[in-house]
């Protein structure tokens, strides 16, 4: 099960992140998590939001370069070693992680992670077979 991540290209200059967030707010979309990868000249903002398609359309309308990317959102037990356990599964299957960031810690002690892997389909299978809990867009929207 793959989820949709919103990616936005932003130049490193004052107020640019703020403008992106304002656009997302204007279409009443909630941000559940984000990660900002930066280089000396530009940044890549990656977001998990309540309605990725609506946010993407609004950003494009406002002149931003944005796109929807498939990622895996996996729910883990909030306990020592759980991240390592499942990363080991991916390594064994020769899957490379492109990037990863935390999503949220829910009530009941579950933590979620966003993962972009070299082969998302295989990664999803590997994790599912190991009994991992992968979240869908609908489930994410309800977080």
């Amino acid at each position, binding site marked *: 099960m793959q989820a949709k991540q919103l990616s936005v*290209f932003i*130049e490193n200059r004052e107020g640019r992140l703020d403008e992106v967030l304002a656009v997302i707010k204007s279409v009443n979309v909630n941000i559940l998590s984000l990660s900002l990868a930066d280089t000396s000249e*530009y940044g*890549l903002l*990656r977001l998990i939001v309540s309605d990725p398609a609506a946010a993407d359309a609004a950003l494009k309308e406002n002149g931003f*370069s*944005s796109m929807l990317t498939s990622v895996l959102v996996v729910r883990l037990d909030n306990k020592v070693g759980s991240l390592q356990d499942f990363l080991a599964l991916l390594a064994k299957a020769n899957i490379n992680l492109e*990037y990863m960031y935390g999503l949220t810690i829910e009530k009941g002690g579950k933590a979620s992670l966003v993962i*972009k892997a070299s082969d998302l389909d295989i990664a999803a299978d590997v994790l599912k077979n190991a009994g991992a809990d992968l979240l869908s867009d609908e489930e994410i929207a309800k977080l």
Partner: protein
Amino acid sequence: MIWNEKMETMSREELTALQSERLVTTVKRVYENVPAYRAKMDAIGLKPEDIKGVEDLPKLPFTTKADLRDNYPFGLFAVPQDEIVRVHASSGTTGKPTVVGYTENDIKMWSECVARCMTMAGITKKDIVQVAYGYGLFTGGLGAHYGAEYMGATTVPMGTGNTQKLITLMKDFGATAIACTPSYLLHIAEVLKEGGDLDKIKLRAAVCGAEPWTEEMRHQIEETLGIAAHDIYGLSEVMGPGVACDCSYHKGLHVCEDHFIPEIISPTTLEPVKEGELGELVFTTITKEGLPLIRYRTRDLTSITYDKCECGRTTCRISRFKGRSDDMLIIRGVNVFPSQVEEALLHVDGVSPHYLIIVDRVNNLDTLEIMVEVDEKFFSDEIKGLEALSKKIAHSVQQMIGLNAKIKLVEPRTIERSMGKAVRVQDKRKLV
């Protein structure tokens, strides 16, 4: 010192007579041997015999870079290919380079002109000359090299790209003269200064060219290095470096007028302007065999004075260049047209045609930055994807113009759109 006393100091009357005689021969020769010239003259009903002297020059049609492109590669050569002993090439406005060819006599004539220029800079056969222009298709390296050799100087073919080695040899050989671009010489001066090597060199003269520079830059070079720096001008279409150079009085660049007739025209009306007025420089070659050019529009803006110089030369002088009448940029001595950059960008899949070329000068070296809008079509959510895109663009630009450019990816619609002609270039260098 004057290299060729006879040719450089003859009276204006004698010079005009010589130019007229050579012009008549040249026009006759191109009409007979170059179909493109014949067609141009026929189109306006001009016969070779209508040209009786320099006063008839304005009757002749102009030649432009487009003519060289249309007759690529050898179409404008006036001799059979087997008489051509060398070709050089420079940037065209698009992917195709401008190709020039030389006969054995042309190479001799070129060497003679460079020798005159080097003599104006005070260089003699006793000097050790480092040639630090690019060798290869560019005319700078081999042009200066042959000239220095022709005058009997000890010639060191340095080329460009290894400043440390150049400095080591400058010190070890006791090099006394150098030929390179003025910005490169300033850079060399800074490296020498930083290394505490300024008192370990014997340099005393420089002929700098291939890019426009200012009097301030000349003073800076002269003061830092304690040398005499001279401005050598040329363009590959006409010959290469050595078409003109300034003497020790630095009051304009003496044109080798027995080989090239200069004119100044208005770039808008194309009519000759009055003496001393600013306009576009036009050259007619009157001794070249391989690629004679009739009224070639250089696009360089300058003015001419025919007054006799204090140095004793009677040849006319062109003033420092005030810019270009087209959009050509000279970056690190390399001619670059924005249209070439555009073509290079279009070779990369998905790159939008919106770009901005930013040229600056940092530590006396030209920098080239190209801002390219990241279109959603080729946008990647991974940094390595974007970096790969930058590299691909940089490679394509390098292949096209031979220069390394820094590619800066920017957001869509951030490069200013202008009504009418788009602003593609920001030249931050202060040269004129």
